């Protein structure tokens, strides 16, 4: 078989389109080469990921654009199962020789771990798919000129500084992942998706006292294009941020105590992520992350038994929400998005773990549920979250309704400092803005707050939810897990929610 030495594309950075860049015929040929070599080497199963990731990152601070970098990286990763042992090898060169060499190294690695593979890896047989999936998008962020992005960042900064901020930094990240997946069961799946993350931080300083306050951007990262960035109202939000950073300097300190806490989706997404998303990952429950990311307070015998939260709490997984960061047609094991549509918590009861290939049988289940991701073609796919979101109240409930019976509460907006224990129980989360809620009405701005809790106690204190009209999707590019650390994009949606008797701390120096 005569194959080109490299994919017949120019460097991705010279393009600007949302369709596939890698040549399909070549991908199929490379897959045949690799999977045939794996089979001939004795592998009972093999899969291959070939891909290209394009990234753009721009960062500006105050009056200068400090960095504008565009990156395009290609690569492959081949995973073989040999005598019940995984072996993996990834590299950047996409040619027949490199693929063959990669298979040899993967087989060598599988043989190397055999002396410590006391329990053979067992896999379920996933159905084969031959298909493609392209994320819908209006304007490819890689098509927007660099100068336009620089101008936007400097406009954001100017807006914040014109409205009270002494300093401001702003950044824009964009990524496009194109992936081709092939396995020895016959799957051939070609996908591409794009995401963007605008961000800024406005800082106000009181030179005399030495105190300073910051207010971060509330616009979330999204699976979207440049049109989303332009429509996010960043310049206007930066003006508010400048004013609010300045106002925080003179705001009343939070008085430490137990409060009814109303949490905005711009903050609650991270709480969902840390307390529910990570605690229900089966690889953590099995101990596979015990040495780093941690285990979980949730155990296999708690399926359908654990009251995770109140009746209002229904948390669902999906890979289909438009604009969400983990939305895709197939996961990195080749499982379709439909597999990842399930309830994790339903009306407060724990219902499902998140699982990747080879995990379900370890807790007596027949199949996994589409929760695998590798942050590069050159890294081993592991169990990662799909989108995980809190369902809104099916009954009509506005924000005013939600806070109407709160006598002494605090409303938290935006994610701040965060920390949670390795079993996902004890957490402490900050925020960007804290407001008093007095007798059913929003009150004054407060400063220096953080809330602390225990996961199931917190979720069982969920006492109110807004309806779908207040639903908001937030998320991050950079959820870290595994050794070596992999970074995954993921979204979490929710409406504003009310929690009773939550411990609120004062974090200020002068409290």
């Amino acid at each position, binding site marked *: 078989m005569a194959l080109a030495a490299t994919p017949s594309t120019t460097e991705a950075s010279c393009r600007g389109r949302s369709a596939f860049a890698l040549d399909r015929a070549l991908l199929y040929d490379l897959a045949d080469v690799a999977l045939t070599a794996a089979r001939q080497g004795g592998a009972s199963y093999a899969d291959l990921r070939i891909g290209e990731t394009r990234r753009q990152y721009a960062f500006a601070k105050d009056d200068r654009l400090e960095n504008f*970098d565009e990156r395009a990286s290609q690569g492959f990763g081949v995973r073989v199962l040999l005598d019940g042992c995984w072996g993996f090898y990834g590299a950047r060169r996409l040619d027949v020789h490199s693929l063959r060499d990669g298979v040899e190294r993967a087989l060598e690695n599988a043989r190397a771990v055999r002396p410590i593979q006391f329990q053979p890896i067992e896999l379920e047989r996933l159905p084969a798919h031959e298909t493609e999936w392209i994320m819908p998008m209006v304007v490819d962020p890689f098509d927007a000129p660099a100068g336009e992005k620089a101008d936007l960042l400097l406009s954001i900064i100017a807006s914040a500084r014109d409205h009270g901020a002494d300093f401001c930094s702003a950044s824009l990240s964009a990524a496009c992942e194109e992936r081709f997946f092939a396995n020895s069961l016959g799957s051939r799946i070609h996908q591409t998706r794009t995401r963007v993350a605008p961000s800024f931080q406005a800082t106000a300083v009181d030179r005399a006292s030495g105190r300073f306050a910051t207010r971060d951007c509330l616009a979330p990262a999204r699976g979207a294009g440049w049109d989303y960035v332009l429509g996010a109202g960043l310049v206007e939000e930066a003006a508010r941020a400048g004013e609010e950073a300045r106002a925080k300097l003179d705001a009343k300190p939070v008085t430490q105590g137990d409060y009814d806490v109303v949490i905005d989706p711009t903050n609650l997404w991270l709480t969902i992520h840390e307390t529910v998303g990570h605690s229900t990952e089966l690889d953590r429950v099995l101990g596979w992350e015990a040495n780093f990311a*941690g285990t979980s307070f949730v155990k296999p015998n708690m399926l359908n038994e654990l009251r995770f939260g109140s009746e209002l709490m229904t948390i669902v997984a999906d890979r289909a929400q438009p604009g969400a960061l983990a939305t895709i047609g197939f996961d990195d094991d080749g499982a379709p998005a439909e597999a990842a549509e399930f309830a994790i918590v339903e009306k407060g009861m724990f219902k499902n773990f998140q699982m990747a290939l080879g995990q379900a049988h370890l807790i007596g289940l027949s199949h996994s549920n589409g929760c695998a991701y590798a942050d590069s073609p050159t890294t081993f796919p592991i169990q990662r979250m799909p989108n995980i979101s809190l369902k809104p109240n099916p009954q009509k409930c506005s924000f005013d309704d939600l806070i109407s019976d709160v006598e002494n509460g605090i409303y938290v907006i935006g994610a701040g400092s965060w920390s949670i224990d390795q079993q996902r129980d004890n957490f402490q989360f900050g925020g960007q803005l804290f407001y008093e809620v007095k007798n059913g009405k929003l009150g004054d701005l407060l400063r220096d707050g953080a809330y602390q809790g225990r996961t199931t106690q917190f979720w069982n204190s969920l006492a109110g939810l807004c309806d779908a009209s207040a639903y908001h999707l937030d998320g991050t590019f950079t959820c870290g897990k595994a050794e070596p650390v992999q970074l995954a994009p993921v979204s979490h949606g929710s409406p504003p929610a009310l929690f009773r008797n939550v411990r609120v701390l004062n974090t200020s120096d002068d409290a």
Partner: protein
Amino acid sequence: MFLSSDDVKAIADQVLAHSRADACAVHIHGGLDQSLRFARGGATTNLASAEAILRVSSHICGRIGSCSISRFDGEALAAAVVRSEEIARMLPVDPDYVAPLGPQNYGFSNRYDEATANLRLDALANAAARVIEEGARIGVDTFGCATTARRFNAFATSAGLFAYERRSEIDLSATARNRADSWSGWAGAHQFFADRLDAERIARVACAKGAHDATPVDLEPGAYTVVLEPDAATELTFWLIRAMEARAADEGRSFFARPGGGALIGEKLFDEKLTIRVDPADPLAPEAAVGFEGLPQRARAFVENGVVTTLYRSRAWAQRTGSEAIPFARNFVMSGGDVSIDDMVRSVRRGVLVTRFWYTNVVEPKSLLLTGLTRDGNFLIENGRIVAPMRNMRFNQRLGDLFSNIKALGPTRRTWRAAGDGGAPAAPAMLVEGFNFSSKSSGI
């Protein structure tokens, strides 16, 4: 993809030859990483991954545009240069424009060993086997990760700079959990030379720490005397170092900012026992000789006898303020003392021995209020003796207070870092009073 100095030079020369910009800078880094994870006494995942990235930055009329690629064939290199120039022309003029560095004098950092660089995955399986065997011997479940890395890092510029540095790394970390899943212990180490990694010791320490069947005791939140093992001390020191940025201090946005303006350089902010140095020639924890932006890393103290002596500073900020550019340091050496951990424990009436921390994060940057949790080996000390495993706790602690209240230091030791990021800090065990535990955690 590991590249030799000659390979990198040839690639960089091609890039510079393509350049039509006023000036051009090239940064190439990459290598081969291999890792193996194990859980409950058996292998789970492994990988070998060969990576390399080239970044070309084109300087045109006070603007800098950059493009990074992973293919190094002639066509890809030429396209990257063109694209970086195209980007540069679209950007606004940088008011703090800094031209590429010319030739520099670098020291030598002894961080590369051919034998370590050539290890394959079977060596990691052997290291993991030491932990698994020890766990089986004393009846605990073992989990962990072993990693090797062979990396290079290089800079070249049209102003005549060529800098190339390589390193080899190996690390092993292990967690042991008792069979009731109610207690855990941990140990880990990182070395640039594989023959200095003592896998058997890591296995013994982790398993011994994890082999406790007694129900962990609960401690009420409050201020306690703590004995921080070197890995715990490193975690806290890392946050202190990270905050030592000159620009934030100059702008009043930092713990190191002086009320009314200016940075607190030359001020005694900490206990006189606190000295933190960075040195590429340090035999225990050598920093890279080639620092951020291609700047040479020199031997220097950031804190000396409690006095702040240095803050790190980018080239652009140094130019604006007329100061010396000082690269950020991944590695540091915190000077130690001669008090053993056993002697520290003997001196404590009631307190806590902490093995390591988890999920630390700054809550309030002005006071360097840090939060986080203890993890994998928290023990209650009473009347000079370790009396029981103690359930984990969350802390909220101002680092300024902590580093001003050091009661004793042990010998400085290399502490764990995952191989691959070049980190190699060293710190002593610390005896500190008044450490603020704010709440209980059930996390084991």
